[in-house]
């Protein structure tokens, strides 16, 4: 059978039947910014950071199947401008004070902001009031940083089989909820052994008594920018080892 290829910014890249644009790109070591995509979980295409132009249309690379001969625009000023704007909206919608965040240096949202040279949040800050949930003995939930990517929802539902998390509400009121009568994590059967404990790309689901273990300069995205970590991102698995 003839090898199928698509063109990434003019570069021919082979792919296998059934792969999405994101999977084809990652296999070829091409970086497409993304937040809600994780190789272990079913893609859902909600953050739109991975937006590319395929055959002239804006599509989510993580959900769109690759097609033979498809021309994909990825690393262009137009797309990166749009992605930067999406990041800025995510930043002002929550409370992202990186200097006091345990995820700083290992955070995908922050790493993408560096990659796309986001120097300012640009929009007025919402400064929402979102109390934290410290009820669980091992895990802290800091909702101030939730970007509603639903990775924890998917991991808990589809892999752990526990349904600990869900999104509730619509539009601006949409937020992450915990599935227990009290609404508190301490009253669920959630544990550090769950996949969902290790998928959050930002600093919401945090293991207690472990923060700031890695010195500044040695953290994941201090060492290399995220755009140079495609291979690791493509092969990652949510587990205890993943910081």
């Amino acid at each position, binding site marked *: 059978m003839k090898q199928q290829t698509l063109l990434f910014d003019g570069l021919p890249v082979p792919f296998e039947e059934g792969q999405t644009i994101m999977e084809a790109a990652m296999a070829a070591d091409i970086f497409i910014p993304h937040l809600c995509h994780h190789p272990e979980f079913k893609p859902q295409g909600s953050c739109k950071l991975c937006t590319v132009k395929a055959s002239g249309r804006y599509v989510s690379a993580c959900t769109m199947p690759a097609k033979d001969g498809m021309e994909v625009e990825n690393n262009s000023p137009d797309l990166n401008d749009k992605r930067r704007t999406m990041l800025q909206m995510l930043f002002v919608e929550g409370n992202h004070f990186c200097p*006091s965040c345990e995820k700083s240096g290992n955070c995908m949202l922050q790493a993408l902001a560096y990659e796309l040279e986001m*120097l*300012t949040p640009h929009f007025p800050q919402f400064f929402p*009031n979102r109390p934290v949930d410290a009820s669980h003995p091992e895990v802290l939930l800091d909702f101030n940083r939730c970007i509603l990517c639903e990775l924890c929802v998917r991991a808990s539902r589809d892999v752990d089989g526990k349904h600990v998390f869900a999104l509730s509400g619509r539009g601006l009121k949409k937020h992450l909820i915990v599935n227990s009568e009290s609404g508190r994590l301490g009253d669920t059967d959630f544990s550090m052994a769950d996949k969902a404990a290790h998928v959050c790309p930002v600093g919401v689901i945090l293991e207690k008594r472990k923060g700031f273990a890695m010195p500044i300069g040695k953290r994941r995205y201090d060492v290399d920018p995220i755009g140079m970590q495609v291979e690791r991102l493509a092969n990652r698995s949510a587990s205890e080892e993943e910081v």
Partner: protein
Amino acid sequence: MNAAVPAPRKLRLATTSLAGCFGCHMSFLDIDERLLDLVDLIEFDRSPLTDIKHCGPCDIGLIEGGLCNAENIHVLREFRRNCKVLIAMGACAVNGGLPAQRNHIDLGQCLQEVYLTQPGLVGGQVPNDPELPLPLDKVHPIHEVVRIDYFIPGCPPSGDAIWKFLTDLLKGRTPRLGHPLLHFD
């Protein structure tokens, strides 16, 4: 004909700290001996380094800190009126930073807790001297009040980041911070 070539005019730089901790200014001083190169190119206007009280016409203004009281806004507007290029330096100027962590607390409650009800306080009172600037209901980043031309994130930005930014600007290049100079913490 031996008319001396006049030395190029030095650019005038003003700096200030609003709702910040002076950490960004300390970081600015961290450019160390490069300060000597810098003063060949610039001269200081209003700044904690000169003690000039009001900003005159300047080429560049560097603002540390966000806006937590009425005086901060007054000073920021003075800088905007006088500086051709205004730069937000550090996390607090860029997004409110640490002081903005009080934003989800009611201001009245916050003052009560700090000055009246905190354990160990005897006979405390909320400061009300008319000379004190009134606190704002919420702390805001400076771009929410005046137009800002450039942003240097970081808490604080490193001396190297500030140096790279300023030298790019002084040499007429588009200032750019790449890995690892661009960081938010």
